[in-house]
C-alpha cells in the first residue's frame, strides 16, 4: 500500500496494524497524563475509547497525529512514526513540513467542529487538498461535492459554517477530513458539543464510514454507538487502559470495578 517500509514487524505489531501504540507516556510538567497506554487497531477496524473526563483519552488521541508529543513508548501509524524518522536505533525529529505530510494521512474530527468560519463549506473542503496536496481546484471541488452528498449536505456547499446547525457543521467537518483521503480517522468526542436531537445524524454518518471499511479511533460517550459499531472497546482511567475487549461482552459484563462504575453512570 505504501512505498515506505513498515516498522510494524520490528516492534512486534501485526502486519495489518494501522495504528499501533505501545507503552505511550505523556506528561505535562510533573503531571503524568498517560502512564503506558497500548493500542492496536488493524486496518478497517473501529476502536472506541471511553472513560471519565481527565482519563487521558483525548490526549492519547492527539498523540496519534502528533498534535501532542509523546514522552515515551512507540507509536506507529501505518507502520511508521508520525513525528520522527527511524534510522538504526535513533529517532530523528522530523522538520514541520515532513510532520505535516504524515499528518495529512491522519484525519481528525474535533468536539468543537473547528470549521474555518471565514470560508464557505466548499472552501473548507478544498483548502487542504489544494494547498497541501496541490490538487487542481476543479478536481478537488468535484470530489468535495461527492463527499458532501455522502454526508447529506450537497445543497449547503455555498453556505458559511455559522449558518449551519451543530450537526451539519460536524458532518461538514467529517467530509473535510475525508477530503484528504486519510488512512485513519480520529474522532475526539464528536457528538459531545451537540444538542441531543442532532447526535443521531452525526452517528449515522460515522456508522456509514465504519461500514465502508474506514479505520477509526473514536473517543466517545455514546455507549450505544460503541456497542453497535466498534470492533474493540477500550476503557481508560487515570492514564491507563483499565479494560479492553469486545464491546458487547464488556458492556454486558465488565470485569473491572472501575469499568462497572463508569458504565453504570453513563448507561
Amino acid at each position: 500500500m505504501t512505498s515506505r517500509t513498515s516498522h510494524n514487524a520490528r516492534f512486534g505489531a501485526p502486519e495489518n496494524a494501522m495504528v499501533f501504540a505501545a507503552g505511550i507516556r505523556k506528561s505535562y510538567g510533573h503531571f503524568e497524563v498517560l502512564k503506558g497506554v497500548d493500542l492496536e487497531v488493524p486496518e478497517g477496524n473501529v476502536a472506541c475509547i471511553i472513560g471519565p473526563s481527565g482519563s487521558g483519552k483525548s490526549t492519547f488521541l492527539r498523540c496519534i497525529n502528533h498534535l501532542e508529543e509523546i514522552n515515551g513508548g512507540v507509536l506507529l501509524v501505518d507502520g511508521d512514526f508520525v513525528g520522527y524518522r527511524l534510522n538504526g536505533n535513533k529517532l530523528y525529529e522530523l522538520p514541520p513540513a515532513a510532520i505535516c505530510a504524515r499528518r495529512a494521512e491522519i484525519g481528525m474530527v474535533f468536539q468543537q467542529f473547528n470549521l474555518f468560519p471565514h470560508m464557505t463549506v466548499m472552501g473548507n473542503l478544498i483548502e487542504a487538498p489544494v494547498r497541501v496536496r496541490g490538487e487542481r481546484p476543479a478536481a478537488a471541488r468535484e470530489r468535495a461535492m461527492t463527499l458532501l452528498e455522502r454526508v447529506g449536505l450537497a445543497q449547503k456547499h455555498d453556505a458559511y459554517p455559522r449558518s449551519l446547525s451543530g450537526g451539519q457543521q460536524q458532518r461538514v467537518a467529517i467530509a473535510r477530513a475525508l477530503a484528504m483521503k486519510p488512512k485513519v480517522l480520529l474522532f475526539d468526542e464528536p457528538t459531545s458539543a451537540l444538542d441531543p436531537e442532532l447526535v443521531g445524524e452525526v452517528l449515522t454518518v460515522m456508522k456509514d464510514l465504519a461500514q465502508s471499511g474506514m479505520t477509526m479511533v473514536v473517543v466517545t460517550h455514546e455507549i450505544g454507538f460503541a456497542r453497535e459499531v466498534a470492533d474493540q472497546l477500550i476503557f481508560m482511567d487515570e492514564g491507563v487502559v483499565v479494560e479492553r475487549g469486545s464491546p458487547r461482552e464488556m458492556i454486558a459484563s465488565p470485569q473491572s470495578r472501575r469499568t462497572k462504575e463508569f458504565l453504570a453512570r453513563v448507561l
Partner: protein
Amino acid sequence: MADSAYKAPANATDTTALVVVPLRHPFRIAAITMVVISVAAILYSVFTNKEFQWPIVGHYMLNPIILRGLATTITLTVAVMIIAVIIGTIAALMMLSPSRLLSVPARVFVWLFRGAPALVQLILWYNLSIVFKTITLWLPGVGTIFSVQTNDVMTPMTAAIVALSLHEAGYMAEIVRSGLNSVVRGQTEAALSLGMRPALSIRRIVLPQAMRLIIPPTGNEAINLLKTTSLVSIIAVGDLLYSAQAIYARTFETLPLLIVVTIWYLITVSVMSFGQYHLERYFSKDDRKTGRGRSRGILRRIFSFRQRAAVA
C-alpha cells in the same frame, strides 16, 4: 373593525374619533433652539469676519506648494504605515513565540517605542548624529563594507519615517497580537491536522480571521497617523502644515492658510474613513451572508438615531 364581533352600545364614543396627543418635550425643544442659535451665530461670525479672508482660502486651496505638502503628508503616512505594519506583525509574532529570547525583546521594543512620545522620538532621530557620527557596516574578516556620515543619511524625511514607523510599529504590534490571540487554538489544530504547515495555517486560517479584529483599529491608527505626521514640520519636513507655515511666514495670511490645511486634513481623513468602512465590510463577509450583518451603512451608522426614532 366592521367584522368585529364586538358591538358597541349606541351611546358609546366612536373609537375612530379618538386622537392621540404626542407628549411634548419642552426641554428638548429649548436645547435644539439653543444649538441652532449658537451654530447660526458661529457661522455668521466666521463668514462675515473679514479676518478669515475666505477668498484667500479659496486662492490657496490648489496652490502648488500646498499640494506638494499634501503629497508629502500622504506619502509619509503610507510609507510609515506600511513599515509599521510589517515591523508590528513581526514583533507580534515574536511576542507570541514560546521562546522568551524572542518574546522578551519584542515586548521591550513595544514598551520603548510606544511609550516615548512621537515628538520626542522625531527630534531624537533627527539629532542622531550627535551620538553616532558615522554609520558603518563592518564584518569580522571582511572589514568595512560601507561607512557614511550620519548627517548625510539622516535627512529630515528619513528621520521622520524612522521615528514615526517605530512609534507606530509599537501600536501595530499590540493590535496584531490581540487579533492573533482572538483566533481560538482549535483553528490552528484543525489546520495542522489537515496537514497544513504552521506558516500556511497562519497565512490562510489564522490571519484572515484575525484581520476582522485587526482592520478597524488599524484604520483608526492610519487616520491618527495622518494627523500625527503634522509633527514633522518641527524638523523641517515639507509636509502640509510646513508648506502652509512657509507661505504665511512670508505673507502673514496665517489664519486662511491654517484653514486650508484643516480642510485638506478633513478631506483626507474622510476619504480614509470611507476606505476603512469598505475594508471592514470585506473582512466580515461571512457575517453578512448569514444575514447577521454587523456593519451597516456608514451614513446609517452616523444617523442611527433616525432609525431609533422611526421605531419609537
